[in-house]
């Protein structure tokens, strides 16, 4: 029995193991070189990612507090992949940072948090996972200790997240009061659409909305993304958001299934708001990180649109899009982090004439941005297409029309960046940059992912075959 338990918990255990390994490395007598540590960590993460695919049967452990199945394993693998890419790209930033081990300990702690959150079968576990992933993240976001912006970001992040988790807890407590249980299945049984329960639901929803930065709970996003170190921002924007969407869609499709009629309307509203506001703000940004922050807000609007489909297609397309989004967004953030680590430049105007000096980086950036904009043959096109297709399943074409027009708006600001890179020029452009080996591997993965994920049809079909729908 223990073997079975350990096996089902293996992803969490491996990551925890890495954490302790790093801890011992740190506290041990010998002082390791940063480069060595980085190589070790990346190798371990790679191993972790590979082991993740080791097949294992579905299981429900600890009286339903922890449950796992193929889909959840897949989701965790996706998160592993994201983390791996992020850490590969972090190289150029971390290699002259003193506290690498601490960085990774915190990062992986959040990863464990996400894992437990995803496979939580119980509000308590969910909450613990959430906090386990949030608190270290806030610490991470002030990891540039001397940077004013970094600490400001961290402050905003922790205060807002404390507030939002307080509201979430309030909602959970009310839900507990109304249903008398914390177990998901128990709650699902006792839900009737009464006003009190709806209120509790909306409070919990706001907790989710905070993490997936849905308007109007998104306001922390831009500042935190801008202030935090690029690596942390990348992690926030893909892994954290992705994990949140995984659990969110589970919660909506299973726990709050009885309220589907209600949350459909709410989600449509949130989705429209999120897309529109995200795009409108992104239009006027000149700092690349901030622009990407708002673009990621808009992207979650599209994801919400996918969720509203409340069908098997919806679930599959959301998970698929997260995968695609990891590749695309990390491609973009990778370039940004490389450049900002080597030159400290982060505004669009600095990127003018980049193509002349760094064609490779420029193409990576371009492909990622086109994928974000959802233009074929990049995978982003398929992702967006399926999301909106799922959304249209409900027959609400006005909503889908707004979404489609938002795709046009978003194209504008992505093209602005492309224009700066390829068409404009400036007196002192960014010089030729050397791309270290690890980041270049990351770029390779991203680009390959962007091209392949869409054109190879079975990836989506595999996800579809795993997903349950509502």
């Amino acid at each position, binding site marked *: 029995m223990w073997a079975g338990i350990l096996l089902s918990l293996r992803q969490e255990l491996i990551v925890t193991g890495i954490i302790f390994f790093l801890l011992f490395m740190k506290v041990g007598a010998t002082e390791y070189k940063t480069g060595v540590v980085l190589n070790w960590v990346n190798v371990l993460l790679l191993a972790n990612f590979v082991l993740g695919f080791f097949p294992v049967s579905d299981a429900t452990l600890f009286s339903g507090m922890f449950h796992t199945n193929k889909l959840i394993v897949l989701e965790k693998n996706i998160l592993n992949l994201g983390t791996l890419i992020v850490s590969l790209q972090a190289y150029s930033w971390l290699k002259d940072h003193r506290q690498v081990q601490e960085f990774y300990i915190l990062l992986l702690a959040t990863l464990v948090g996400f894992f437990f959150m995803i496979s939580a079968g119980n509000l308590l576990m969910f909450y613990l996972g959430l906090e386990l992933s949030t608190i270290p993240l806030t610490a991470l976001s002030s990891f540039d200790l001397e940077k004013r912006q970094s600490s400001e970001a961290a402050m905003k992040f922790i205060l807002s997240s404390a507030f939002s988790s307080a509201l979430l807890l309030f909602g959970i407590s009310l839900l507990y009061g109304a249903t008398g249980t914390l177990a998901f299945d128990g709650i699902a049984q006792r839900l009737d659409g009464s006003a009190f329960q709806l209120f509790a639901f909306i409070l919990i929803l706001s907790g989710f909305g905070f993490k997936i930065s849905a308007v109007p709970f998104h306001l922390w996003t831009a500042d935190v993304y801008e202030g935090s170190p690029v690596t942390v921002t990348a992690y926030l924007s893909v892994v954290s958001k992705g994990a949140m969407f995984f659990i969110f869609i589970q919660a909506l499709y299973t726990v709050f299934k009885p309220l589907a009629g209600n949350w459909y309307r709410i989600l449509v509203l949130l989705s429209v708001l999120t897309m529109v506001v995200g795009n409108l703000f992104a239009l006027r940004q000149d700092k690349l990180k901030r622009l990407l922050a708002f673009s990621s807000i808009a992207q979650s609007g599209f994801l919400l649109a996918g969720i509203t489909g409340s069908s098997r297609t919806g679930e599959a397309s959301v998970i698929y899009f997260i995968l695609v989004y990891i590749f695309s967004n990390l491609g973009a953030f990778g370039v940004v982090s490389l450049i900002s680590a080597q030159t400290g430049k982060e505004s669009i105007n600095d990127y003018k004439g980049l193509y002349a000096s760094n064609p490779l980086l420029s193409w990576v950036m371009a492909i990622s941005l086109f994928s974000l904009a959802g233009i074929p043959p990049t995978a982003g096109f398929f992702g967006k297409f399926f999301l909106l297709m799922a959304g249209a399943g409900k027959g609400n074409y006005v909503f*889908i029309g707004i979404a489609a027009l938002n795709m*046009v708006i978003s*194209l504008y600001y992505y093209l602005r960046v492309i224009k700066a890179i390829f068409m404009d020029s400036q007196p002192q452009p960014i010089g030729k940059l050397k791309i270290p080996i690890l980041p270049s591997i990351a770029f390779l993965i991203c680009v390959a992912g962007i091209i392949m994920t869409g054109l190879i049809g079975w990836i*989506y*079909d595999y996800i579809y075959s795993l997903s349950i729908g509502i």
Partner: protein
Amino acid sequence: MNLSFLVLVPLITAVAVLFCRGLNGIRWVSLAGATVQLLLSFGLLALYWRERAAGNGTAMLFEYRHAWFPSLNIWYHLGVDGISIAMILLTAFVMEAAILVSWKVERMGKEFFVLLLLLSAGAYGFFLSLDLFTLFFFLEVSVIPKFLLIGIWGSGRKEYSAMKLALMLMGGSALVFIGLLGVYYNTGGAGGPHGFDWQAIAQMHLPAEVQRRFFPFLFVGFGIFTALFPFHTWVPDGHSSAPTAASMFLAGISMKLGGYGCLRVAVYLMPDAARYYSPIIILLATIAIVYGAFATMMQKDLKYINAYSSISHCGFILLGIGMLTQTAITGAVIQMISHGLMTALFFAAIGMIYDRTHTRLVERLGGLLKIMPFFSTVFVIAGLCSLGLPGLSGFVAEMTVFMGSWQHAGEMYRLATILACASIVITAVYILRATGQTIMGPVKDPHYNGLADATWNEKLAGVLLVVGIIAIGIAPFWLSDLLTSGVSVIMGHVEKAIIAGKAVIIKK
């Protein structure tokens, strides 16, 4: 033959170009690719004729299906009929010529050719695909290359134009997207699987109210690509700022994507709605024709002249489609081909002249016939084709459209037809003014005298297109014969719809 070749050849060529070093290598490789493509297209035509001669009456030939996203019933599904073969031939011709004229591209040559080839791959895929998803995929593929080609190698307000073009076309495809989703979710009837296979959809005959709801999305969406008034404003800026090859492709092929889509998707899948909206279509098309022609008269820049005249000419396409008669639709398709060749030729000539004189302003040029007889001849031929001189393709296309439109008895339709006919006089006016001022007359600028005439590649490009134009102009029967079967399939649906509509009316 496996139609995927037609999509793969340009891609393979592009990859090959990526790996060659030295401008010459790049040029020759891409030229070779384009030539292979041209030959393939001719082969396709031959095979098609053989099949038909063998009595193969199926609507679509050489179908190739491969499950792409089975869970969503999305297929990678290719197939051709006469119409698509004609469009593919057109694309092949224009591509060959485009690569020939862009021989002189020095700056970032590799990127240029790669993008051009990607663009063409998109167009081929579009004309080949029988699955709406595949079609949409290929429709949008072309957005990136267009944007980059115009923005990087363009002239004038290139960034603005590139941005405008990209956004407006994206808007168009957004509308198309909504229409497609609407179609998708109304297929399969009760509980059956939804699908994108357009033949199947056409067979199942979507309910009338669905058609009326989604037809505008599809038609306007595709219409934006083919300069439907009032969404045509990307055309002048886009065409005039684009580099020669790109404007050839834009005006020659990309605008045809829209017309093809309007015909193949909008009208074919939603005949009832097509009938219902045809007065509006006719109205917009007529406005585009007349107003475009008048606006052209006032232009000073050769590229603007051609761009606006494209608006006017593409109006004929929409007019023909909107008239919903066999002849008119055939005419519309012929007009697509003819305008594709003609405008490509025009832009080629303009581009070559611009390379030498570095101006496109009519009042600056003059007496070019003395200096560059080849360009001038090409230019004049293009002009005569555009004003519909018999023996050149333009005449065939326009006359077919007029004939067909006149079949549609009805005061308003007749009026529209007459106005359209009148536009050919205006066309004559602006074409002759342009020709008279640039080609004929005394040489305005003394140091034009030293300028050289065409090099071999430019000559080849010009000849290629001229041959195409004349081949249609003096022997149109093969083309119309090629198109008949495809068009009559569409018309079959339209007539069924008309009967069905009558039946509904009778019931009421």
